[in-house]
């Protein structure tokens, strides 16, 4: 996990370096500066989140000398093998876009379908 915090912090620093360099060379060209600034801000957000999350994290994979024996009986969480909602959600997204372009009724129905799928997905993952 420490590695990941470092990864995001150094990515943010790198984004900032590119942003500053770009600003110096080509600030009259604003699009690029704005794009780089947004990207650096997003990386900074991820980095801050990683720093905070790292404090409470307990990850088996980070234990240098941990063996499978040591974590026997530990709860690994439950993984689903099947759910009908992902494919329905994807189809609803398609019809939502088609609806926006060609038919408001279709768009409305698809938005309802998207919300229903999201609700069911949320309920499914809460159950386990």
């Amino acid at each position, binding site marked *: 996990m420490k590695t990941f915090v470092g990864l995001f912090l150094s990515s943010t620093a790198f984004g900032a370096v590119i942003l500053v360099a770009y600003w110096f060379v080509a600030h009259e060209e604003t699009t690029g500066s704005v794009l780089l600034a947004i990207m650096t801000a997003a990386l900074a957000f991820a980095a801050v989140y990683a720093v905070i999350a790292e404090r409470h994290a307990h990850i088996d994979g980070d234990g240098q000398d941990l063996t499978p024996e040591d974590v026997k009986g530990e709860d690994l969480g439950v993984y689903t093998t099947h759910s009908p909602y992902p*494919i329905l959600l994807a189809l609803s997204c398609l019809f939502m876009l088609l609806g926006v*372009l060609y038919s408001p009724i279709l768009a409305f129905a698809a938005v309802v379908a998207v919300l229903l799928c999201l609700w069911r997905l949320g309920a499914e993952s809460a159950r386990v």
Partner: protein
Amino acid sequence: MITWLTATDHKKIGIMYIITTMVFFVIAGILALMIRAQLATPDNDLIPSHLYNQIFTLHGTAMIFFVIAPFGLGLANYLVPLQIGAPDMAFPRLNATSLWLFVIAGIITFLGLATYGGAAAYGWTNYAPLSEISEGTGVGADFWLIGILLASVSTILTAINITTTTFLLRAPGMTMWRVPIFVWEMIATAILILMAFPSLTAVTLMVLIDRHLGGHFFDPAFGGNPILYQHLFWFFGHPEVYVMVLPYFGIVTEVIATFARKPVFGYVGLVISAFAIAGLSIGVWAHHMFTTGAVSNPFFSAVSFLIAVPTGVKFVNWIGTMWKGSIELSTAMLFAVGFLFNFLLGGITGVMVASPPIDYQVHDSYFVVNHFHYTLGGGSMFAMFAALFFWFPKIFGVKLSERLGKWCFWFMFVGFNITFIPMAFMGLEGMARRVYTYPNVEHLALLNGIASFGGVILAIGVALFFVNILVSAFAHVPVPANPWGGYSLEWATSSPPPEFNFETMPPINSRRPLWDAPSTQGSGP
């Protein structure tokens, strides 16, 4: 059937990803053959221009969005949990959503062909304002935009999933500095996707708004700006190039290390160079805009040149891995070596086009077609076949015929080079890309004839791969857990792996867990 449609198991999703990319690969390949048929002779009128424009648009779109990029993601779906010793991806339902968004995106993009007026015909770059002028009804162009929008969202979701999985689900002892290089390359790819793809989502939405809701983002008559389109597109577009290359760097590293029977040379260097490439690649987007006269050419030229350094480091590490090894030239290894040969040429022409004075001549010419086919075709596509031959036994429990495989490689390697070497010279002689016909001047007729001939040989090579699958499936020789003597975790479990991947997990004390515990190896030393 239903069990596949609703599956959330990462292995099933990975398999469906890979099969979908193979379907689009065949379709895009057939489109490429149609292009070569039309260009085989000068002033040819086999395919009319409006149809030809749809063909090359769909060829590029399919190869980029529905073959080379998603194959990497699909393989990662299959392999990353296995290689880090996890039971599944972190978000299995999100993973299934990504898969189906991607499949639907591909289908809707190609459905444009069935509409009146045909599919999108603006090239895969879809430059505005051209893409805001509809030829025919424009429904095909809308379908293209919807497809790309869905594909971009799907890719972002997969990137989130891969990052979280490698963060949290590594097996005990599998520290970050022990995961296989393929996993590292996928982390770099995922972070790059998170930085770059939102720009594609945005620009695609903007074109849709311009087309349907009266926006004027890119229309200079209403204060819009065509250059803005290019900035937003290439801010995604150049990183996308590395999204289509980094996973394949990972594949090649794994294949070379396995068949040279040596540890990866310069593990830390490979990791750092992956992130250096990813980082630098966000600062080079406007090298696709050198000829617009609207960007800082020296800045983008300098950063583009710099990318050659981490890429050079990778070559040193690959050669270092082979050095003093014990190299077995299996089919997978042949394809990995083919990758090295072709990608190096693509890299060298890449350094050339990083120079604006050179780009002034070759931009939008067949020289550039040569360049990116050497990186993505001769490079990534060859690594894709290396991966297919390497992991096919793991995924399906059946080994592909090595004899047929070697024929497949040599046809592809020879055919590829005969097809694409002449294109560098066509570009220098003034042949622009995306033209449906060309006059009989200079050596264009001869060069194009050679390229079309090479295309047939390449196609035979690819066809042999599918013949190989049929023949091998029919022969059905079962394979042990570790047929190649690999040393990463996926070879510790049965072929194909059981649900939730591992019956027993070997202890992990190093970068080569199976090397340390020979008892878990199926064969090999």
